[in-house]
């Protein structure tokens, strides 16, 4: 069992060593790429989003009725000879199971996979009673032999090579085992068959506890759960209260997504529905002794939380890890405690406490890849940000975050600071766009990319000179600039203004706008983020623009999805926030969908241009095709491998985890290089900062720009 990190510096050391593990890197790389393709193809056969919506609804409903469902389940199961228990804590659950073993004179136990048993650390409790406990899921057995915890919820031994497994199997059998995987699987078949036969008690997990008839369901591929639930005379099911579901209909809905999302299978080899204590010929009365132990461990409290109750939509498919770019680099042991992946960070906080979660929870880059595939439609990145804010409320913030929050509360002070920064940096830029000569002490692990300089004149300072004069405008829009473009890359906004003016659009730039607040939330400063949100909404009050355009995908997606719920404490403000959010439009969508710019509007330069899809554009806003079309209209579009994988910026993330950020950037640049393009465009200044800085550092002969710059350059006069 690995320990959860307790300090960021210790955690970064662990991450460093994980990054050096070539086998892990290779395995997870291959997995990430093949999973993505296999998942896509297996979901083509069903209505993915329809099913996910149904799951969301069904699980939320089950969560609201947890107590009722428990009572119904208990009643129906007891009628069928099942003993039903309810444990308030993990320790109590373990005690109940140990007591069942004692009362039934059990010596040997076989287990099929259960994340809930991992959560309660049941095995340790059973070992303390001198019971022999064997895991029978192949992956779980392997990690048990190695005294490790799972590194993935569905593929617990994905971090290990066949050679390591062969060594472990050699030790346990006392016979030299070769590393052929098919043979290794058969070693487990032989070794574990004996254990199934000798066992007095089987412990299984539970995918669904069905209230309408008191049945429990397990979903497996290897067939071990059927052995565990059939051969021993006693069967104990351990289940979180969140596994309760009203009827089997909801289970059938989840089953259509669970295996597809977990392993890109249509359905696992076995789905077993056990309704009542059935036949068991080794007991004198030919009846199985069947106990179901429900674990609360905080669940009934979480179920009442309006925001966090959505964690019970989780079906334990592990997809959030499968698509996570950070998991892909560092593996599950570094991205979770017992539960792994994005949901693992959240469940660690609730089931294993804030001490174990506080550092882990920082390791989300916010790319939304997990949210995009979650079987239950859980807003995982948001919940992780929310936990950071809770940790801040409970434990206070680190100095950096607190400083940021206090500066941001006052827009004028914040903007003044940014303007001063341009003088302070002068000795380091040599007059270029990059900070070239930052003393090494400031760079540290951040030397993997060139950092941009603050612009000599911000967009807001230039605005009075460039504000376009338009008569009889087609649209009236406002710009929400975000900090990066206002103060670092004003030329990106100017390019946008040039296009809008040329197409007869009236543009406004309300000066009272400030930072969108996302960086604050990323650093756990929720309260200041709410203040800033209110300031921004007020800055655009009552102007009735046709659209509010942002050239920063992160700002856009944050403003659109988060502002209304953030400001719901005041009805009028909420209505304004809603109107504000509805008008937020990303640059590409506006010029593509509203202005309908196409090949006729550009002199195609023929330049080979490739594209990086910013996380918050392609996933946050679902905008995928508009940028492709626009590039094709103005230049020659060269597709890039893994276009939608995060570039590693993640705002403040790249400051906290520079090693991971650098690795993600490296992958991106490798893919960029193989396109042969001389230019890459993106629709987010954060990505420009990361990618341009990386290209500069590696001296690639590739320009990285905002897509607005490419379009403005090639716009027909």
């Amino acid at each position, binding site marked *: 069992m690995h320990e959860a990190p307790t300090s960021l510096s210790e955690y970064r050391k662990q991450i460093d060593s994980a990054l050096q593990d070539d086998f892990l890197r290779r395995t997870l790389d291959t997995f990430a790429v093949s999973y993505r393709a296999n998942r896509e193809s297996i979901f083509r056969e069903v209505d993915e989003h329809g099913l996910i919506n149904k799951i969301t609804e069904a699980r939320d409903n089950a969560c609201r009725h947890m107590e009722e469902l428990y009572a119904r389940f208990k009643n129906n199961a007891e009628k069928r000879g099942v003993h039903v228990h309810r444990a308030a804590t993990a320790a109590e659950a373990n005690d109940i199971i140990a007591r069942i073993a004692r009362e039934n004179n059990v010596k040997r136990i076989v287990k099929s996979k259960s994340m809930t048993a991992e959560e309660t650390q049941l095995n340790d409790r059973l070992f303390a009673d001198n019971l022999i406990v064997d895991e029978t899921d192949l992956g779980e057995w392997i990690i048990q032999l190695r005294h490790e915890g799972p590194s993935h919820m569905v593929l617990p031994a994905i971090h290990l090579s066949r050679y390591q497994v062969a060594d472990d199997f050699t030790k346990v059998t006392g016979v030299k085992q070769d590393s052929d*995987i098919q043979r290794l*699987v058969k070693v487990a*078949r032989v070794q574990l068959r*004996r254990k199934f036969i000798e066992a007095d008690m089987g412990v299984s997990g539970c995918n669904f506890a069905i209230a309408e008839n008191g049945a429990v369901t397990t979903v497996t*591929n290897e067939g071990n759960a059927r052995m565990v639930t059939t*051969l021993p005379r006693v069967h104990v099911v351990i289940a979180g209260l969140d596994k309760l579901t009203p009827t*089997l209909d909801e289970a059938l809905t989840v089953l259509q997504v669970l295996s597809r999302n977990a*392993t890109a299978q249509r*359905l696992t080899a076995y789905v077993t529905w056990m*309704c009542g204590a059935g036949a068991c010929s080794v007991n004198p009365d030919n009846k199985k002794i069947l106990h179901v132990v429900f674990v609360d461990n905080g669940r009934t409290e979480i179920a009442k939380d309006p925001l966090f109750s959505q964690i019970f939509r989780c079906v334990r498919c592990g997809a959030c890890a499968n698509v996570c770019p950070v998991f892909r680099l560092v593996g599950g042991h570094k991205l979770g405690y017992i539960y792994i992946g994005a949901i693992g960070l959240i469940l660690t906080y609730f089931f294993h406490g804030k001490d174990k979660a506080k550092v882990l929870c920082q390791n989300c880059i916010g790319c939304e890849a997990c949210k995009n595939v979650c079987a239950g439609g859980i807003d995982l990145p948001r919940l992780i940000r929310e936990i950071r804010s809770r940790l801040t409320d409970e434990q206070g913030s680190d100095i950096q975050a607190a400083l940021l929050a206090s500066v941001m509360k006052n827009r004028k002070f914040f903007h003044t600071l940014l303007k001063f920064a341009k003088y302070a940096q002068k000795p380091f830029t040599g007059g270029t766009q990059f900070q070239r000569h930052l003393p090494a002490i400031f760079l540290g692990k951040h030397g993997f990319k060139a950092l941009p300089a603050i612009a000599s004149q911000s967009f807001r300072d230039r605005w009075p000179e460039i504000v376009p004069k338009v008569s009889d405008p087609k649209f009236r829009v406002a710009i929400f600039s975000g900090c990066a473009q206002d103060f670092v890359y004003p030329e990106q906004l100017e390019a946008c203004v040039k296009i809008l003016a040329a197409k007869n659009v009236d543009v406004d730039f309300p000066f009272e706008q400030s930072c969108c607040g996302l960086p604050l939330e990323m650093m756990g400063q929720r309260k200041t983020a709410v203040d800033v949100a209110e300031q921004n909404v007020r800055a655009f009050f009552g102007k009735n623009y046709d659209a509010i355009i942002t050239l920063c995908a992160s700002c856009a997606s944050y403003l659109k999805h988060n502002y209304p719920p953030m400001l719901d404490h005041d009805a009028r403000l909420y209505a304004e926030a809603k109107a504000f959010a509805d008008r937020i439009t990303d640059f590409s969508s506006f010029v593509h969908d509203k202005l309908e710019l196409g090949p006729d509007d550009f002199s195609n330069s023929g330049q080979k241009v490739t594209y990086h899809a910013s996380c918050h554009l392609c996933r946050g806003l679902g905008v995928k095709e508009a940028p492709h079309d626009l590039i094709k209209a103005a230049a020659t579009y060269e597709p890039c491998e893994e276009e939608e994988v995060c570039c590693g910026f993640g705002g403040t993330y790249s400051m906290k985890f520079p090693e991971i950020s650098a690795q993600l950037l490296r992958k991106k640049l490798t893919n960029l290089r193989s396109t042969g393009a001389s230019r890459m465009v993106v629709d987010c200044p954060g990505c420009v900062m990361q990618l341009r800085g990386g290209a500069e550092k590696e001296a690639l002969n590739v320009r990285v720009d905002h897509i607005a710059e490419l379009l403005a350059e090639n716009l027909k006069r």
Partner: protein
Amino acid sequence: MALADSVNQHLVETFTAKAAAVNAVVQELPSMAAALQYVVDVCESKQPAELLTNEPGTEQGPPGPNKQPTRVKRIVAAPDLNDADLAALSKTCEEKGFLCIRDGLRRYVAGFDVGITQARLGVAASGTCMMNTDSEDARLAGMIAEIHVIMLRKSTIYPDLPSIAQYLRERMAEGETTYTTLVSGPSRTADIERVAAVGVHGPLELHIILLED
């Protein structure tokens, strides 16, 4: 009628493709007699079953692929055939020198050759069979046998999981206690380096015989 037939054929084709995609061997046969003959043929042509644990009093042959001793007298387990079909199967097995058993399968958990059971229905979208496994013997026939043969009537193939909800509900209510299994292909794993391997704890092979009504 014509419409119903064509729909049915489409489901049969989908079922066959999806079952094959998860390594099941799908075989269309005209009659129960042909199905029983198929079972005997499968048993005859396979490697003898390995005894994964000691089974006192059982004649042992040379070690199998996993270096475990093998069973000399082959076993076909048929826990849910009706009396007439079982009698027919027993007769053929006897001629071949196989043991044909209906119950008491726990005696043979070290491993046996073939288990044959009947599906309640099939699910085309995933190549799945719904099995009544209330009895221990019905479970063991599909768990311990090296080759599991399922007989499925073509007319009982349904499109997808939602379309079998009511049948599953009725199946689970058939007795005071029930145990129902959805089977899609032989047992499998990808737990070592994500390499697919078939035949972990359950059957090494799954054969599905599609029968006309």
